[in-house]
C-alpha cells in the first residue's frame, strides 16, 4: 500500500485549472521530486496535499486514511508536514523556539498555559538535537531573522522535520541560495530523510539537484502529470525530452 495516493485531484481558480486530474502515489521512505515549469501546478498540489487548499474533485489517501477533507492540523497529526517556497519562519523567535514550537504542537503541549516553556527540558533537548542535525547548533539562540538565507532555508525544513512526519513536502528548499549552499542544504535534507525513515516530496527547478537526489521524479505540465519514473526513466522519456527541448529552445530565442 502506498504511503500517499492522490486520485483524480482537481483544483481551479476561476477559469484556470491549476491542478487538472492528477493521479500519483508515493511509497514509504522515498525521495520524490516534483518538477515542471512555473504554473505547472506543483505548489497548488503541495497546498492540496497539506490542506492549505481544498480540492474541487478527487481524493487524497494518506497511510490508509482519507484525508481529503481534514484541516491542516488534522493532516499534521496524520503525519504530513511541509516547508514553504518563500521561507516562512517566526522571525522574532529564536532558532530554538522555532523548532521547539513544532515539538510542543506535535506533543499536544501547545495549549499548556501555566507551564513555562523553558522548563520543558525534554522539548529543549530534542529541539537542540534537530537543530544540530541541520547544522545550526551554534545558532540556537539567534533570532530567525538574523540567519543567512541558506540557514533560514535549513531552519524552515528543520521546523517541519521536528513534527516527526511520515511525509515531508519541501517547496523549493534550495531556491535563492548559491550552488554550493544548494548541495549543502540537500545533503542535510537527504541525510535526515534517509536516516529518519520518512518520505519526502521536493518541488525543485534545478535538474542537477533533482537527478542527484531523487528516487523518483514526477513531471507536471499545465496541471497534469506529464511523466513519472526513476531519474533514468525520466531522462529517456520522449515527452520530457520534447518539453525540456522546447524550454531550451525558448531560452535560445
Amino acid at each position, binding site marked *: 500500500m502506498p504511503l500517499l495516493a492522490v486520485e483524480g485531484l482537481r483544483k481551479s481558480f476561476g477559469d484556470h485549472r491549476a491542478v487538472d486530474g492528477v493521479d500519483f502515489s508515493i511509497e514509504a521512505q522515498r525521495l520524490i521530486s516534483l518538477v515542471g515549469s512555473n504554473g505547472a501546478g506543483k505548489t497548488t498540489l503541495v497546498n492540496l496535499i497539506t490542506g492549505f487548499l481544498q480540492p474541487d474533485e478527487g481524493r487524497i489517501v494518506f497511510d490508509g486514511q482519507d484525508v481529503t477533507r481534514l484541516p491542516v492540523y488534522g493532516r499534521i497529526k496524520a503525519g504530513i508536514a511541509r516547508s514553504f517556497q518563500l521561507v516562512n519562519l517566526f522571525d522574532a*523567535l529564536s532558532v530554538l523556539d522555532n523548532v521547539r514550537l513544532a515539538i510542543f504542537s506535535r506533543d499536544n503541549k501547545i*495549549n499548556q498555559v501555566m507551564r513555562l516553556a*523553558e522548563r520543558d527540558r525534554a522539548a529543549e533537548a530534542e529541539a537542540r538535537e534537530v537543530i544540530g542535525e541541520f547544522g545550526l547548533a551554534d545558532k540556537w539562540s539567534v533570532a530567525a531573522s538574523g540567519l543567512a538565507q541558506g540557514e533560514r532555508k535549513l531552519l524552515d525544513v528543520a521546523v517541519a522535520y521536528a513534527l516527526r512526519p511520515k511525509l515531508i513536502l519541501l517547496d523549493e528548499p534550495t531556491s535563492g541560495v548559491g550552488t554550493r549552499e544548494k548541495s549543502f542544504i540537500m545533503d542535510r535534507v537527504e541525510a535526515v530523510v534517509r536516516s529518519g525513515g520518512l518520505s519526502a516530496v521536493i518541488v525543485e527547478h534545478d535538474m542537477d539537484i533533482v537527478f542527484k537526489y531523487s528516487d523518483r521524479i514526477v513531471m507536471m505540465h499545465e496541471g497534469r502529470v506529464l511523466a513519472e519514473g526513476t531519474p533514468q526513466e525520466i531522462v529517456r522519456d520522449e515527452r520530457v525530452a520534447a518539453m525540456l527541448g522546447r524550454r531550451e529552445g525558448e531560452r535560445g530565442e
Partner: protein
Amino acid sequence: MNTPAAAARGTASGTAPAAAYAYVALVAALLVGFPYIASSYQTILLSYGLVMAIAALAVNLLLGYTGLLSFGHSVYFGAAAYGAAFVVKYLHVVSMEAFLAGGLLSGLVIAAVFGFICVRYTKIFFSILTLALSQVGWSLALKLFWVTGGTDGIRVPTPVLLGGVFGAPDDKVVFLAHRYYYYVLAVFTVCAVLMWRIVQSPFGKSLQAIRDNEVRAESIGIRVRRARWFAFVLSGMFTGIAGVLWAPLNGLATPDVLYWPFSGELVFMTVMGGFHSFSGPIIGAVAFNYLKSYAVGRTEYWQLLLGVVFVVLVLVLPDGIMGAWTRLHRRTRREG
C-alpha cells in the same frame, strides 16, 4: 522581566539576570511601603495606576503577544464594573470577593461571545469590530436605564474585604489608601505573575508565533483561530478584574467607562509603556494615570496635552518608555 522580543531570542537557561531580580525587589519594597511614605491622595492615585496596569497588561496579551489591536476593551472593563454594581444592587452583597465573582463572570461571558466573533478577522477589521461591539455595550448601558441607572450609573459602596477579616470599612479615604490599596496590590501581583507565566508558556509562545507568521503557525498544527479566541477571553477576563477593582475606587459604575475613548486610553497606556516588553504596559499605565491626573488638575486643555504627548511618544519613543530604557541600558553597558 522578559520582553516578547527577548523571550523570542529564547534564553535557554530561563534565568533572568540578577539585576532584574534586584529591580523587582526594589519596586516591590517601594510598592509595599508606599502608603507610609506618600499621602493618601498619592496612594489612591497609585491604586488607580495598578488597576489600569492590569488592564494594560491584558490589552498587551492581544497587542504585543498576539498582534491584535483591540479598540474595544472598555466593554470588558465596564461590564465587570457593572457586574460588581449589580451584585450590590440586586443581591445586596457588599463583599469584594462577590464583586470579583460577578465582575469576572460578566467580563468572561462578554469576552467569550465578542471574541468568538472578532477573532475571525485580523488587522484593521479586527480593531473596528472590537470598537463597534464595545459601543453596543455602551449604548445598552446608556439606554437600559432601569437596569443600569443610565447616565447616573449605579453606586458601588466601599466593600468588605476577605469577609471582614481586616475589619469593617471605616473612613473611606483611609480605607482606600491602606487596606484597599494592599488588596489592589495583591490582586495586581497575582494577575501580573499569571500573565507573565502565560506569555512564557507553550501557549504564550504559540501566540507570538501567530503574531509573527500566521501561515507558518498553522503549518505546524497550531489552531490559529482557537488560540486567538483563547487569548481574547483571557485578555477580557483580566480586563474584567481591573474593572471590578476600579469600581469601589470610583464609587460608581457609569456608562463612560464603556465608551470607546477609554479603550483608546488603555491602548495609549500600553504603547506609552512599550508593548514590546512585558513590563512596559505597567509603567505606561502608572505613568499615564499620573500624567492624566496632573493634566486635568493643571489645564482645561488636558486632552490637547495628552494628544501632544502621544504624538511625541510615537515619533520619538516608538518602543515606549521601556523600549527607550532598554536601549539606553544597552548603550551604557556597551560604553562601560
